[in-house]
């Protein structure tokens, strides 16, 4: 089975960690990351930039909003990882995807860290 683990925490608390605290947490996580990668169980893992770096495209109105997607009546159903030139290209791609799959919204959030992991699936 393929599973995703989605990570939730208080952003302003995590952003208040000192570099040393952040490094210590990452070092501890990396022990597990490395074991799981060696076992061929862990695919890509990533850390997102803070929500201040996010932009949201509301598909039905083609409306671009600064900030994360804040509505709670919709659920997170999937996500894409893209390697692109920047926000404008990201919005173009999101609009194209939105034509095939209308309704809801796409939040574009740059990545802070990307670990490719093992080749899985």
């Amino acid at each position: 089975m393929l599973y995703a683990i989605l990570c939730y925490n208080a952003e302003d608390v995590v952003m208040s960690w000192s570099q040393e605290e952040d490094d210590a947490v990452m070092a501890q996580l990396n022990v597990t990351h490395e074991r799981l990668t060696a076992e061929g169980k862990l695919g890509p893992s990533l850390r997102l930039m803070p929500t201040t770096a996010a932009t949201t495209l509301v598909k039905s109105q083609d409306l671009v909003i600064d900030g994360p997607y804040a509505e709670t009546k919709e659920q997170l159903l999937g996500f894409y990882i893209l390697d692109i030139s920047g926000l404008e290209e990201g919005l173009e791609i999101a609009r194209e995807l939105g034509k095939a799959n209308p309704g809801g919204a796409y939040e574009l959030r740059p990545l802070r860290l990307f670990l490719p992991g093992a080749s899985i699936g």
Partner: protein
Amino acid sequence: MTELAWIDAAITSARPQAVGALLRYFRDLDTAEEAFQDACLRALKTWPVNGPPRDPAAWLIMVGRNAGIDGTRRRAKQTTLPDEAALSDIEDAETPLAERLDGADNRDDVLRLLFICCHPDLPPTQQIALALRIVSGLSVKQIARAFLVGESAMEQRITRAKARVAGAGVPFETPGPVERAERVAAVAAMIYLLFNEGYSAGGQQDDRARLADEAIRLARLLLRLFQTEPEIMGLTALLLLQHSRASARFDAAGEIVLMDDQDRALWDRRLIAEGLALVDKAMRHRRPGPYQIQAAIAALHARAARAEDTDWAGIAALYGALERQTPSPVITLNRAVAVSKTDGPQAALDLIAPLEARLAGYFHFHGVRGALLKQLGQDAAARTAFNQAIALANTPAEAAHIRMHLDQLQAGGVG
């Protein structure tokens, strides 16, 4: 991460919102700070036992409010004339806290807390010291070390700043849109000053360098409150992009390394990526302002893999745009540096010649002029300019950098 470190981080991040709400409640900065301290002490006792609360800020506000009321009552009993008016005022204010926590109130609470540190009567260093004490919660000792002054001197400075702010009357009414925009602009300027305090300090001194981190934290906070403000995106991006070069700006001996000579492998890619993302977001608004333009300039530097790949024509154009928005001889001087890369040193010298009267007392003017003259082979004139610069240097590192130029002139054996 240890439990204590988690609690510390939770309290630090909740502080602006909690102290801001307590200030609105008690309308007195000292009472609000004391109430917050009481709440923190209780958090340290109860959170390890009961586990952390779901919303640490709301918990600290609730407990701080009760502690503050207790304190007010205790003091009222101790004094011969109890202040009935103040007490009934507090009772009236006991509306359900939860509904006052979200949305606009929270935003204006934090903005107010930041804004009272920016009182125009306070000199910039006092604004910054006050913000570090009240908003960031740094100890007087930490702030004193960052400013390289004694603890008691800093204590006095902060006490005086607080008294002045209290005397001026804290603005408690909900601000209108124009006033809110003015407050945001004042706070942005203070955050930029704070960053520059840390930035100018350089790599080695940890306590001062911490100021830059703190400024970035406050900029992110302001941006979270005003998510759609392109200038706040620009400010945050500017700080991130400038700070990304922190490890490369000074060599092992503590001497300045100019951007062209920096080891770009030392630039922090994570900060650059976030800065570039924010520049992208800001540009979409097509409402350029000074912070956005400066961030765009920093972004062009950050995007260049090697110094020789730098888009100097783009940078010169952006400085031109910045000059039109906020005319200043210092910006013209910066544009001249970019122009020297595209049109040569003589074109740059022509550009800065009219600035001499206004920038005669400015270190960088003579430093840039000396470097341009040196490029043209006018060694005697260059030496004169460098000597003027040394006399105006603000830090030993600046003086050392100019001395290096002078040594090179000597090594050339001319003049």
